[in-house]
Structure formats: C-alpha cells, structure tokens
C-alpha cells in the first residue's frame, strides 16, 4: 500500500498566490512560441502539473536513456478486482470502447481442477456480481491483471514491417503512430494479446507503461490508482523502491508464457499454474 505524504498547510493567501503564479506562467507559455525547442525543454518543472515526483531521481538528473531500467510487478495475491486500473487507463489514454490496454481477469477453480475464466468488459466495471453459471462447488477464485509484458525480445517488434513499434534503450516497447500502416501483424504476433487496432486512428496501440508519465517521474496511471498495491512499478536504480527489494529477495516471481521465449519484463508475484 502506498501512503501519501501530507501536503504542507496552505492558507488562502498562499493558495491564491499559487493559482496566480500558475496562471501567469500559463499565459506566458501561451505567448512564447512552443515550437522549435527540444522536446526535453518540455520537461522543465514549471510545465509539469504541480505534482511531486513519485519515482525518485528522474527529474533532477539528465535522463540517460541507455542507463535506465524499470520493473513492473503484479501481485496477484493483492488484486481485489476493483477495476480502478482499467478505468484509470481508459481515462488516461481515451481508449476506445471494446479495446483494452490493460484488463483484469477472474479465475475460478473447482475441485476437479477445471478453470473458468471471465473478463466482463475488460474489468472496467469491476466485478460486481459472482458467476452464476458454474454448477460445481468453487475451490478458489482470484484476479489477474494483465497488461503489456514489455518483452525484452518482443515478437511484435520483430514482425513490424516498417519499424513503427520498437524497444527503447530504456526497455519500453513503444508505438510510432505516425509510421504505423495498420497491417495488424504485431497484433497477431503478440502472445499476450496486449495489442489492438485503434478503430479511430486505424493504427496499432497497446499499453506503454505510461511512458509519458514515467519520464516525468510519475507512476503509471494504473499503478497510481491501485488501492491495494497489486501493481508495483519502480526504477531499478532506486534501491529503496519496492520493486527493487522484491527483485532482490527470494520471492517467487513468474512471467507469462515463458516457453514462448519473449523474456517479459513484467513479473507476477503469487501467480498460479492456471494463469496463461
């Protein structure tokens, strides 16, 4: 569970001052032409919403893209199927209906080792009602969040004919929406079904571990909103981060479809045999 730090006490004057500063800065930004500058100019603290850094060390240093590594761990024992992650992801990226960058599946096991899996609306509405169509007595139930596995040897990158999907030097598999021709090969090649064709832009799309947030020192949206800490994210350069400690420790971490040889960077804690 993550605990927020209490914000400093704000009186009315300080509040008005902050708002005015923000408005003035904002209006100045409107006057000064934004174009022509390096994209990295945009990372100046004044242009980021007034949010403290969540991943230590990203903002104050020069970002060396070759030196950075991140880890994402999903703890199945803590997922309650609330669907906050799915809702946050949909809101962060305006994901079209019927397509999912991340989703949560419900697994039900009976005493004959039969597994029943469902995922109503990708988990966007959470799981509000139990399954009524299973006759056998239920032995166990659990939730499995799924998202892009950021494979170190990503099959989607291998098959893209035009170089529209790629692995960055800091380990993120991203999309170049200006280059994508919408052939759908990457969607076929992904063993985890993380990708879809955006019906509006007609290009391929997938979860990016909120790269635009991570580069500004913020956690991915789904990690941010998870109330139980089932999703964990951190920089492996930060030895105080939870993910670093988990990866250093003796806990059992698994990945999905290991036999495919994709070397996912997404780890599962507490995963089960039945999860594919």
């Amino acid at each position, binding site marked *: 569970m993550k605990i927020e730090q209490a914000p400093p006490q704000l009186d009315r004057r300080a509040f008005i001052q902050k708002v005015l500063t923000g408005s003035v800065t904002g209006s100045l930004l409107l006057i000064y032409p934004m174009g022509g500058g390096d994209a990295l100019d945009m990372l100046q603290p004044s242009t980021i919403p007034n949010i403290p850094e969540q991943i230590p060390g990203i903002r104050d240093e020069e970002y060396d893209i070759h030196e950075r590594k991140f880890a994402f761990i999903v703890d199945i024992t803590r997922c309650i199927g609330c669907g906050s992650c799915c809702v946050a992801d949909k809101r962060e990226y305006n994901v079209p209906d*019927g*397509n*999912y960058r991340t*989703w949560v*599946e419900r697994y039900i096991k009976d005493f*004959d*080792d*039969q*597994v*029943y*899996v*469902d*995922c109503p609306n*990708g988990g966007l509405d959470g799981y509000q009602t139990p399954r009524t*169509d*299973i006759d056998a007595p239920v032995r166990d139930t659990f939730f499995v969040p799924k998202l892009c596995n950021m494979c170190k040897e990503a*099959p989607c*990158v*291998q*098959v*893209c*004919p*035009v*170089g*529209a999907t790629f692995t960055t030097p800091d380990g993120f598999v991203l999309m170049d929406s200006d*280059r*994508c*021709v*919408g*052939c*759908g*090969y990457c*969607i*076929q*090649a*992904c*063993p*985890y*079904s*993380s*990708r*879809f*064709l955006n019906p509006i*832009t*007609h*290009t*391929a799309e997938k979860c990016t571990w909120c790269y635009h947030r991570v580069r500004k020192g913020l956690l991915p949206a789904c990690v941010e909103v998870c109330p139980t800490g089932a999703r964990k994210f951190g920089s492996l350069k930060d030895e105080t981060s939870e993910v670093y400690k988990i990866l250093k420790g003796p806990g059992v971490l698994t990945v999905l479809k290991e*036999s*495919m*040889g994709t070397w996912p960077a997404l780890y599962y804690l507490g995963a089960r*045999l*039945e999860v*594919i």
Partner: protein
Amino acid sequence: MSGFHEGSAMLLSNFVLPNDLHVHWSMMIVLYPYITGLVDGAFIIAALYYLFDVKSLKPVARFSLLFALAFLCCATLPLLLHLGRPERNLNMLLTPSPSSAMAGFGYIYAVSMGVLGFIVLFVYRADLVKLKQHSRGIMKLIYRLLTFDCDDLSPRAMALDDRIIKILVGLGIPVAAFLHGYVGFIFGGVKANPTWATPLMPVIFLFSACVSGIAAIVLAYIVIRKFTGKFIDGPCIITCIKTLTGFFILAFSFEMLEVFSHSYLKSGYHHMVEGLLNGPLATSFWLWQVKICSGIPLVLLAIMAFIKLQQPRYNLLAAGVSAILLLQVFIMRWNVVIGGQLMSKSARGYTVFHPEWFDKEGILAVIVVMLIPFVILFILGKIFPFWTEEQNG
C-alpha cells in the same frame, strides 16, 4: 501448462481475451495468398515449357504467362484494402524492417513484376514487332516502347531472345518461390499462434499455390477454348493434370502431416488446435477442405491417371477437378488465415468471424478484387494474343 489435463472438451467456459474478440486479418488476407498462389502456379507451367522444355505444354505456355501477369498486377489490391492506413503503404519500401517477413513485400513484388513483365515482352517480341508494323498513332508508340524500338527478328536476335527468356525464367522461379513462400513464412513465423507456427507453413503454401495456379490454367484454357469454339489440345491437358496430381499429393500430404503430427505429439496448446478443428472449423476443415475438396479430386485424379478415357471425357473431368481444387485451395487459405485467428491466445476459447457484405474487406469487395484480374487478362489478350495462329487451327 498444468491445469489442462482434462483437455479442451472438458472446459465449460469459453474465454476469449478481450483484445482477441475481433478477427483482424479478414478476407482480404485470405485473398492475397490466393492471388500470389495463382501467379506462382501459372508461372510453373510457363517455366516447365520455357526452361525445362516440356513441349506438350506449348499451347498454354504463353497464356499462363499472361494469366500470371494479370493476377500479379492485382496482388497489391487486397493489401491496400486491408491496411488501416493505406496512404502510408510506401513506408514498406522506405523503412522495411530486416526482421519482418512482411517487409519483404515491396521489393519482392517489384522484382517479380519486373521479371515477369520482361519475360512476357521477350516471349511476345516477334508478335509485337508484327503488330507494330500494322498499327499507327498511340498504339504504334506503345508497341515501339514494348519492342525496344527495334525491328530485328533475325535468327541471331531470336536466339538471344531464347537465351534471355531462359535466364529470366530461371531467375523467375526463385523469385516466384519468394513471392509466395514469404507469405507462408508470415504465418509460419508467428510463434504466438499455435495453428500458424510451423516450419511446414511456407512449404504447404507453395505446393498448394502450384495446385491452384495449374488448376486455374487448366480450367481457364478449357473454358475459353470451348467458348471461342476452338479445339482443346489433349496432350497439353494430360501433362497439366499429371503435374497437378504431383503437386496436389505433396500439398495434401503436408497438410495432413501437419495436423496428424501435432495431434500425435500433443505438445503445447495442441488440444486447443484440435478443439478448433473439431469445433468451430469442423465443417469448413474436415467436411469441405478434406472430404469434399480433397477427397473427391484424389479419386478423380486417380481415375484420370489409371483408367484410359476418351479425350472429351478426360477434358471434362480435368475441368471439374480443377474447379474443385481451386475451391480447395481457397478454403485452405480461409481455414489457415481466419480459422487460425478464431483460437484465442488465452488457450481457453474461440471467437467467431462474421463476414460482412459491404465492408472494405467484405464479400462484395472480394468478388470485385477477384474479377479485376480477369478484366486485366482480357485487356492483355488484346495486346498479346493468347494463342498463336497454329494453335488456333
């Protein structure tokens, strides 16, 4: 992989991953291998005559070149209709990824168009020169361009033509093999899909491509000659059918070997593939592809191979077998492309495919795309006559 010991038949919940519900590669992607397959098969007939000197194939040699060219002209159409952003299609030529089979398309297509185009020009040079001398205006200009603006029909020039044709056809065979083989590898190289990931995929595609192309030539030849009231060359049909039989036996054996060896090995997600073939694809695979469209042709081809038939009856059977085999290859492409996507990557369920009528990849679009090559063939026939005078009797 534990938790599956009961097999797919016992699974009571059909679970399709949320992003797997939609079938992305639709009928246009079924059509593209089919069209390039027809090109390959037709080219094999031409290659057998021009390179391997199989004299009995002379009546269809030129026709099969034109047939291949007509279909090759249309090969990009299904792809452009499929792409989400067809206006960016040149990206395939500008930044082709060396690790992607699909990236080869632009360059392989360009080379095969060049090779086939030049083969046609050299084969028809004598006819074109004669046509040039009888024409005027814009047609004369076109013929001048097509004959390298040269009227030389001397024995030395014709001998050079023959050598060039042989070289180009020899070059054309590996190019054609790439043109269709890489499509097979597009599927065979997708480890995420158990129905597609097999080293046999390019081989199966190539052999069934030859089947479809030869069948198309046989059927088109018989139909066109019948409708224009000309005679049908018996030995030619016999040679075509023998070649067809050989390729079909190979293609069918590999198709069945694929299914059988996976069924025996029972490795990986094979129970799901079995569930697919015995479930959603039971009708289109076992009934249509295997029993009707492979079983019947095998019987008919056996009859044609072992029983002495009168030529007209033989020709009728040849046309019938060819029509069924054209259907077989189409259904096989359908089962591979669309059938392969019905199985969800959850390994726990199957989705459904509903062909639309008026979609850009819909049934009407498929019909139009398949008609266009015949229109092109008709136009080509006006410039490059299908048969020589002697063949017209």
